[in-house]
Structure formats: C-alpha cells, structure tokens
C-alpha cells in the first residue's frame, strides 16, 4: 500500500515525504519532518480575518479598500512572495503589470544575483536527487543547512544511500564546510572544516584556485597553505561535486566573478564535474525568481510601465523606499517593517500598506488593510520550486477556513 505523503513548506527543501496523523480537523502527529517543519505545519490555522485601519470588516470591504489604495497610487510597490505558491506569484506579477507597479522580493538583498546567474547558465547546476544519487563531494560554503534546512544532509547531501552511492557516507562521500565560524554543519564536516575570517572568502577562493592550478596558495590571513592544498586535492579527486552556496558567501563577495572562476577551474581540474545549488531559505523564493525571469528576463527589482519593463537596483525594495519613489505597498507573506534596516523601513510608515499574511506581523499591525491568508502547504495547495529548481506540487493538509493568497490576489484583481 502506498502511503499518503504531504509536502512541508517550512523551508526551501520542500520535503515531500511527510506523514500526518489527523486529530479531528487538525494536524496531530507529524512523522519524518524536522522540528522547524513540525512547528510550521502545526501553526494554528486561525479564522479568516480582514482588517481596515485595525478594525474588523468583511471580505468585500477589505478587498475594495485595498483596490482603491492601489488605484490611487502612482507607483505602488508589490513585495514579498517568497512563501507564496507559483500560482499566487503569477497572479502578483499580472497585478503588477496591470498597476504599472514596482515588483520585488527578498532575493534583491540575498541570493538574487546567484539565482539569476544560474538561470543565465553561468553555473552548472543539478538537482538534489542527483546529489543523493551521485555526489561524492558536498561542499557547504557560507551555508549552514543543519540550522537553516535541517534535513538537507540526511535527505540529500551527505547521509543517504543513492543509486551510485550504495556504500554509505563514511566510505563514499565527503562533506566540506567553509565558514567564518564552526557551525553545526561544520561540526559534522569534522576535519574538512575551513575557517575563514569575515570577508575573507574572495581571497580564499583566489588561493584555492592557485592550489588547484599547482601554485602555492597564499592568503593575507595566513591560512595554512598545506591545508589549502589538501582541500584542493580532495576537490580534484571529485567525480561529482556540488557547492551549496549560502548567504554567508554571497554577502562576503563584491560580485560573482571569483565564484564563476572557481567553478570553471574546478570543472577543468577535477576528475568529474562540479555543480552549484543555491541554499534558498524561503520555500518558494526561487519560484518567484524563475517565473519573473521567464516573463521579463530579470529575477527581481522590476518596474512595469505600459507594457514595458524596467529593471535595476533602483527598483529594489530597499532603493525604491530610500528614494521614496513608491507611494503604496502591497506586501505578501513578508514583514519588511521588521526585517529591513530601520532607516529604510520607516519610509513604509509614510505610505499606505496592504498586507496578506497568515500571521500578525509588525507590518500587518501598521497596515491600512490587512488580510490573513492560509498557510500554503497546510491550508492551501499549489506548487512551488525547490532550491534546485525542481517543481514540487502539493495539496492542503486540512480544510481551510482562510483564503489562499492566490484567491485573495484574484479577488483584488477583479476589484480593480
């Protein structure tokens, strides 16, 4: 008998093997998910709630109010969407087109450039299933999946048996970590942990490239050349190597050039091939980036204008707020008031906000219109794009009393 599995939308790993025991209409016992996933799935599925200026109203009033805010705006900002389904994201993009809005997500200040480079095929990439089946080197750079994606190592990148990896992790896989501190992941990597000082990644890459090319690897922070050469040798022996790039590395690099050069060198010098997978945090940030890229050629920070698209840092959430170019904001599944630096976030208090979110957040409390949506994957079905680009469809686990963000966006569209 095939078991019935659910998908966890607790992080970008989108684990698709979660078993649930239902208790009445609620989720009871959760099997196989990590603690983060369990907390996410058991988050209490409240009632639908529509607030205008903090007062409860009915759905129709809230949607109409939101529509009139957006209509009145000259250049509204649509932001968030990292925890929305592919379907909801498509709706939001349509809405942005219709409103001549500025559209951005959190990737503009995190992994956006990396995902763009992958979509532009500047890096070779592979799926997590390939990693499980073939990878002999899993290299975590500036990423700490043990904390951010708890099942990453057990489900894909280190511990599982795979088609060409039948003998187990001790014999057939090597996990490597480069980080500024000994993270939980680094701990698992044991001797293959390489500590760099903050901001030292570019130099470490340079030195590693030198080591791979048979030169003496030198760093200003005096990383032991012998240890670096050992690392270069391990990497050279790889048949199927994967680098999991996290924010730690992206924030430390001025641009992606060093990383591109490293990947090229690895692919030239190693026995086999090297691939790169971005460690996307939100369960569907990559989905947003891919859908927008398909439509416009850009992954984030766009402004629609009468059928044409403009793109650039000026259209990112941070810059457009700084420059005060946006005069209303529709925020979906994100809490910029809490997450952006105060100097920028405070500009959000100057313009009318509309929030769509399952939770009460700082942003929703300050919003003109706030709508509580269902948690996707728990209360709403749809599909999402995993960190490696694989499409994962899912259905809701419980009967929702709250509308999905897709439904809310559709209604908003109609009201316009």
């Amino acid at each position, binding site marked *: 008998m095939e*078991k019935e*599995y659910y998908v966890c939308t607790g992080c970008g790993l989108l684990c698709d*093997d*979660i*078993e649930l025991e239902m208790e009445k209409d609620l989720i009871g*016992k*959760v*099997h*196989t*998910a*990590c*603690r*983060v*996933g*369990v*907390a996410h799935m058991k988050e209490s599925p409240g009632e639908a709630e529509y607030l205008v200026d903090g007062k409860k109203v009915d759905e129709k009033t809230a949607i109409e109010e939101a529509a009139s805010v957006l209509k009145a705006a000259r250049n509204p900002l649509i932001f968030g969407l990292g925890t929305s389904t592919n379907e909801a994201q498509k709706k939001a993009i349509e809405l942005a087109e219709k409103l001549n809005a500025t559209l951005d997500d959190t990737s503009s200040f995190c992994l956006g450039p990396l995902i763009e480079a992958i979509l532009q095929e500047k890096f070779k990439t592979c799926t997590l299933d390939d990693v*499980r089946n073939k990878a002999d080197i899993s290299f975590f750079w500036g990423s700490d999946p*043990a904390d951010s994606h*708890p*099942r990453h*190592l*057990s*489900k*894909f990148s*280190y*511990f*599982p*048996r*795979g088609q060409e990896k039948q003998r*187990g*992790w001790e014999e057939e896989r090597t996990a490597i970590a480069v980080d500024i501190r000994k993270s*939980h*992941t680094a*701990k*698992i990597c044991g001797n293959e942990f390489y500590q760099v000082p903050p901001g030292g990644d570019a130099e470490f890459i340079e030195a590693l490239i030198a080591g791979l090319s048979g030169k003496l690897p030198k760093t200003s922070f005096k990383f032991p050349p012998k240890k670096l050469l050992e690392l270069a040798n391990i990497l050279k022996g790889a048949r199927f190597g994967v680098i999991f790039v996290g924010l730690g590395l992206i924030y430390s690099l001025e641009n992606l050039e060093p990383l591109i050069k490293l990947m090229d060198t690895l692919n030239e010098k190693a026995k086999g091939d090297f691939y790169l997978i971005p460690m996307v945090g939100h369960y569907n940030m990559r989905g947003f980036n891919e859908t927008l890229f398909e439509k416009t050629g850009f992954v984030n920070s766009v402004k629609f204008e009468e059928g044409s698209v403009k793109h650039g840092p000026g259209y990112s959430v941070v810059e457009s707020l700084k420059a005060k170019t946006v005069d209303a904001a529709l925020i979906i599944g994100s809490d910029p008031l809490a997450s952006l630096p105060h100097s920028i976030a405070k500009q959000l208090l100057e313009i009318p906000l509309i929030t769509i979110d399952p939770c009460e957040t700082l942003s929703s409390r300050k919003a003109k219109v706030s709508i509580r949506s269902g948690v996707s994957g728990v209360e709403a079905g749809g599909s999402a794009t995993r960190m490696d680009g694989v499409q994962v469809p899912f259905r809701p686990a419980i009967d929702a009393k709250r509308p999905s963000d897709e439904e809310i966006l559709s209604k908003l569209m109609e009201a316009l």
Partner: protein
Amino acid sequence: MTNAMELYQLLPKTNCKECGKTSCMAFAVALLSRELTADDCPPLKNEPKFKEKYEKINELAGPAGGATETGLIVHEELCFGCGNCVVACPVNVANDPYGVGSGNAPKKNEKLILTIEDGIVKAQNVDECRRFGKNKILCTGCIVTCPVEAIEFVV
C-alpha cells in the same frame, strides 16, 4: 546522568565475587551496560539492610531507568529532528534501505531503531542496536552524525 561510580556507591562494596564479577566496581559497570541487574548481586538482593539501595539501583539501572536497555538516551530538548542519525544508523539502513536508508520517510517500520516523530528522534527496537547483544560492536553511527550531541550511550 547515572555513572558507574554512583552505582558503585550503592553496592555492598565487599568484593565478594558472588555475582561472578571480580569486584563491586566491575559489577557497577555491568549494571550500567545492562549486562546484569541488581538481582544478580545476592547480598544486595537478599539482605534487608540493602533494601533501600537495591530499590535505588533498580530505579537507576533498571529497564525503566530513563535509558533504554542499550543505554541509549535521547536528549529531546536538544534534538531538532534533522534525521542524520536515522539515516546513518546501519540497522535502519539494513532494514529499510529505500526508505530511511535513502533519506526518506520509513517504508518498512518494523525493525527501525530511530525514527522522527513530531520533530524529535524516537528510539524503539533497541535490542536491534549493534551495541547490544552477543555480537555487539562499538557502533557510533548515531552519535557522530548528530550536530547537537542529542544522543548518548551511558556505558
């Protein structure tokens, strides 16, 4: 945590060897590894003056002493359900290669030692553990793979 010294303090400390061990300390170690129980020390079991100590030892080293029979202890407050130990445990892999052995949900539950329930590791079928029984070996699969030292064996 219970250690051999603590158990030793509760023994008669006469080194009479009736238990078959060379000393009370050796007996304490055997208690800890669940090789023997309090009943295997005749003076402890039979002499009324040791009654309290006998009961205390049963509490600490008996089957219901917090640890499982192999001495496996899960610190639930530390465990975050990453599943590393579940996937790395050789007994789990042998019994369910395509389920937990491949990183997935269990396909065959019967003989699994470690599984994840509500985000925390749960131990069962511990008599299957490689540290237990006649051909025991010092397996460390679930210990070295845990990022937070949530699994411990009290031996």
